[in-house]
């Protein structure tokens, strides 16, 4: 596949995606709305955390911003991607692509690249917004934070592709993806900090993979040492391995089989 073909396919995928009103709203507008509303309510609350034995005073937003980032990752991976994949399979677009002189693995690669670009764009918008309005502060190091973002994106992305291949119908995919997404989101600490949960719920939600995405990102954002975050990193990585192993078994180009 040449560069021109990849570029055109990328552009086409992106155009089709952003022209879908629901996908565009939930991917671009909804995270900004969420950040703005929750930020206005809680964003400036004083909060503190410990870094290298020193207690640091800051705000809710400067600690829990990674929860909003986790929302973008989960929303893209568990909602947008599987629904988009299932709808393109059921409408036959994937069948059409099989009748063209292009490598199907490159189609997947371009699709992943598109989601990553959307994620980077959404992240950048959220970061600038939080920085400008809520005086967001970053306490970690760029490299570990970048690697953690990549790990979370790859892990949840693989689950999104897995979900996208499970059902023939786009509406079934949408229903299942929404249930999984909202269950994970509300119990992960992304919407409501987990330290507000009762003890039993706090423990139960450790089984939620998104909890570990939120914990991992908060840990690297606040500059915690590796021993504070390795468990979450391992869980997120294992979820990713499961996704990468299972996705090829469930992914189908053709709804009719």
């Amino acid at each position, binding site marked *: 596949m040449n560069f*021109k*073909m990849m*570029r*055109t*396919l990328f*552009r*086409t995928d992106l*155009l*089709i995606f952003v*022209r*879908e009103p629901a996908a565009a709203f939930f991917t671009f507008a909804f995270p900004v709305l969420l950040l703005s509303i929750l930020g206005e309510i809680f964003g400036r609350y004083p909060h503190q955390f410990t870094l290298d034995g020193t207690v640091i005073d800051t705000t809710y937003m400067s600690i829990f911003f990674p929860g909003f980032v986790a929302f973008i990752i989960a929303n893209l991976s568990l909602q947008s991607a599987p629904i988009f994949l299932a709808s*393109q399979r059921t*409408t*036959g*677009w994937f*069948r*059409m692509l*099989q*009748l*063209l*002189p*292009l*490598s199907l693995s490159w189609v997947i690669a371009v699709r992943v690249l598109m989601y990553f670009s959307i994620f980077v764009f959404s992240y950048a918008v959220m970061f600038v917004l939080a920085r400008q309005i809520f005086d967001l502060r970053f306490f970690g190091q760029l490299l570990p934070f970048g690697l953690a973002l990549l790990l979370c994106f790859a892990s949840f992305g693989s689950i999104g592709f897995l979900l996208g291949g499970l059902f023939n119908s786009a509406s079934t995919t949408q229903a299942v993806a929404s249930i999984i997404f909202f269950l994970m989101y509300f119990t992960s600490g992304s919407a409501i900090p987990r330290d507000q949960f009762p003890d039993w719920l706090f423990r139960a939600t450790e089984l939620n993979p998104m909890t570990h995405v939120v914990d991992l990102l908060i840990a690297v954002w606040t500059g915690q040492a590796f021993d504070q975050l390795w468990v979450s990193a391992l869980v997120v990585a294992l979820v990713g391995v499961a996704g990468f192993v299972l996705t090829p078994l469930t992914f189908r180009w*053709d709804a009719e089989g």
Partner: protein
Amino acid sequence: MSVSDLVIEVANLAKHYGDITAVADVSLQVEAGTIFGLVGPNGAGKSTAIECIEGLRTPSDGSVRVLGRPPRQHRRELFREIGVLPQHNELLPARLRVGEAVDLWRSFHDNPLSKDETLALCGLGGRQKARTSRLSGGQRRRLMIALAQVGRPRLLILDEPSSGLDPVARYNIWRNLNVFKEQGGTILVSTHYMDEAEEHCDQLCLLDHGRIQVLGNPRRLMEERRMRILVKVPHTPDLDRDRLLALDHAHQVEQVENEWFVFGATDRLYGELKQLTHREFLEMRPARLEDLYLMTTGRAYRTGVD
């Protein structure tokens, strides 16, 4: 005919889905520079056969070679030389614009038609900005056929190119396809329009229930069965198949509801039937491929008779 003249070679193709046989023991060859029609009613197995030829489906049995290669193993190389029209227009994303679709298809090929040439082929030069969902059925079909031709293919595989279109749209599509053939291209086309198959196809394969019923040149097929004219005779108690076939110029007879369809090679059949039935007027017309189709599959003929 040398092997290199054969663009498609299908031998004993079969495709089963569980207990259901979609295609059984289909063998055919498509020569370069011809239009080959796969004809049959809905559910006859045309699309399954085409999808096996395209490499979208794995045959349960038999072999397929396209441009000398098995399609499933050489998908990418083959689709540089083959243009494909799937059965459904909806395969194009609804939110894609006409010009964007052309750009995308052009990017897949090393030496594609220009954007203007492609748009001229489908007559949509003025609708580049239109979303494909806003096009009429005929316009979308023309666009998809033009997209199939973007890579200057040697072979076009078209699944029901004119299905559901009005006569003008059908005429325009076939005019385009005949130009492609005149330029040396080969076309494998499926259709359930008998008049199209008769008029445009050099060879046709009539499929029903997944099996070949008739294979050959449409005109020759009619001549072989001595089906040149059709006379319709109202059903009466004293007339039966044997009496009709006993006439010198009657070669095929079929009962259709309350009429006998009697086929013959010459107009003399008309006089013989008038004499036999003591009627002054009988309905007579040239026999068509549609009649051969009906005679072979028996479906429409048996409506209300079975």
